[in-house]
């Protein structure tokens, strides 16, 4: 089952840093994540798309499409809006 890693304030909202979530695509996994963690509703996804400034990586690759297929061993990382320099 793909692993989802959460960062920054998403950890507090979900009450965890990491969770295994089933799903065939990145979007499906994220939808299921929100379903299991209602506190994340409206934080990551909006109208089936990523909310502005939310960054999702798939195995460390950050230019992704939420329709991309995911495999059992894949790692999805979700970052809320962050900034710095």
């Amino acid at each position, binding site marked *: 089952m793909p692993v989802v890693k959460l960062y920054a304030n998403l950890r507090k909202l979900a009450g965890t840093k990491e969770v295994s979530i089933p799903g065939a695509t990145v979007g499906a996994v994220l939808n299921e994540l929100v379903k299991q963690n209602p506190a994340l509703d409206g934080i990551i996804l909006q109208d089936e798309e990523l909310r502005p*400034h939310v*960054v999702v990586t798939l195995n460390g690759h950050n*230019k992704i499409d939420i329709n991309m297929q995911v495999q059992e061993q894949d790692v999805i990382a979700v970052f809320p*809006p962050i900034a*710095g*320099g």
Partner: protein
Amino acid sequence: MAGWSEKVLDIDLSTQTYQTYPLDMEMARLFVGGRGLGARLLWDMVGPEVNTLSPENVLIFTNGPLTGTGYQTSNRFSVTTKSPLTGTILDANSGGFWGMQFKKAGYDVMIVRGKAEKPVWIEIKNDVIAFHDASELWGMRVFALTAKLGQNNNKRNVLCIGPAGENLSRMASIMNDRERALARGGPGAVMGSKNLKAVVVEGRDRPVINDPERFKFMLYETRKLLAASPLTSQALPEFGTVVLMNIMNNIGALATRNHQQTQFEGAEAISGEELSEKYLVKNSACWACPIGCTRISKTEKGEGEGPEFESTWAFGAQCGIADLPAIIEANTLCNDLGLDTITAGSTIACAMELSEKGYMDSDLRFGRADQLAPTLEAMAYRRDIGSDLTDGSLRLATKYSHPEFSMSAKGMEMPAYDPRGMQGQGLLYATSNRGGCHMRGNMVGPEVLGLPKMIDRFQVQGKSSFVILHQNVSAAIDSLVICKFTNMGVADEYFARVLSSVTGIQYDTGELTRVGERVWNLERLYNLREGFTRKDDTLPQRLLTEAPTEGPSKGWVVKLEPMLKEYYRGRGWDENGVPKPQKLTELKLADLLVRI
């Protein structure tokens, strides 16, 4: 004219005299303030014949037309000089309160020339300028000195050097308001070489604003924009800049152990999340800043500002250290000693690699958190091993016959972003006019965070246009001078409207970006005049030839050459990186070309 004070304070420390004279307003219109104005003034004053630590080098402190107006983040100011670390033109800018106070004292510019016979400090109260004996202050550290000279955030502000500056460390910073820094490139060494310990300012006059009603509306709109942006209203205040640690590690672009790897197994332990959970006391903010990204952190050994992302990385991943309290304490120690954290951390990492590989006889080793504080102390006082390290990694690695272990560009240590995982960042480091730096444009926005939209970080073709735009905008913002974080909530075209309301001169978006391009080209001309050439627009061999063997950036090196060719074309420069006469005419810089 509104915005500018139209006044230059010109100090000669050799004679302990000063004069004031009107600012050249045509120059001010073209270069605005801060970094741009400083570069233009330095061009006339310091040529290739000047040794950076000689009395002939100058320090030029500049604020900008927005400084002190109360516009959001209008607290910043710059220092411009020829860098003792790199030999390039150098500007460094800082926040806090001092810049606002200096503007209120009635000056746009303070030039410091010559060298005092004995240590001095300067006190400025508008038109009253006093030189004081600093013999008893020489040797004091920054925190104690700042308190002794009467730091009072909104009334009296202290700018000074610590022991590192006194001992002419080429990585010495100038500190202001206790823990803010004009950090990079060694301006503190220039100040130390002049026997100048501190400059204390009390100002009494608010800057004149041309159209107060319009300006008030701009303040209101900016407040709304910053509050509406999750970046400036939530991300920066809640987690500060260190929150970048995990994402940079996740994508395999976190330079680790002197850039030998691109991922650090201890990243989580030194992340913004960890800092906020265990060590954060509260947030803090510079004058007129509603964002408040500054962290006040506490360990068993005390409390201090920071650390920022780059400092945490420099003493953390770059040194293979996952001990956050030790990193926080190293950061605070650097502020007290007056050392640049990025160059200090990366130079220690370079020494660790040289030592581990047997090229240098020292016990420095990656992962040894206990070695940070004593090594920094030794560097600031040029003691023992510190005398080898205190002039930066390039001089250190060259001394031990392995300059390739210096992770620097033009002699300035690069920050955290490993460009093998961010091709645009590689081009940015290679072409930055002050050397390896992330504050002369930063591709972390488009290449990592999707700001304003995500572009492929491994893409090479077409990347130069993004880099050029970011460099020009950064030069424009540094000339206003405001904080670049404002730009995360407020589009840069908005700043032109603010500038117009303050000065009464109509700047449009194109004109402001053109100011940035003008500044960038002037800095380029300065470096060419100093003898820098195309061959200096490069990166350490490691980044060009050694690909990471694991992680998301596996197999990638920086493909610099094609990006560089495209960059020169995009800049309107010839194949050797020299601005073409037509470009300089377009930028109103043609009169300078005949002088290089």
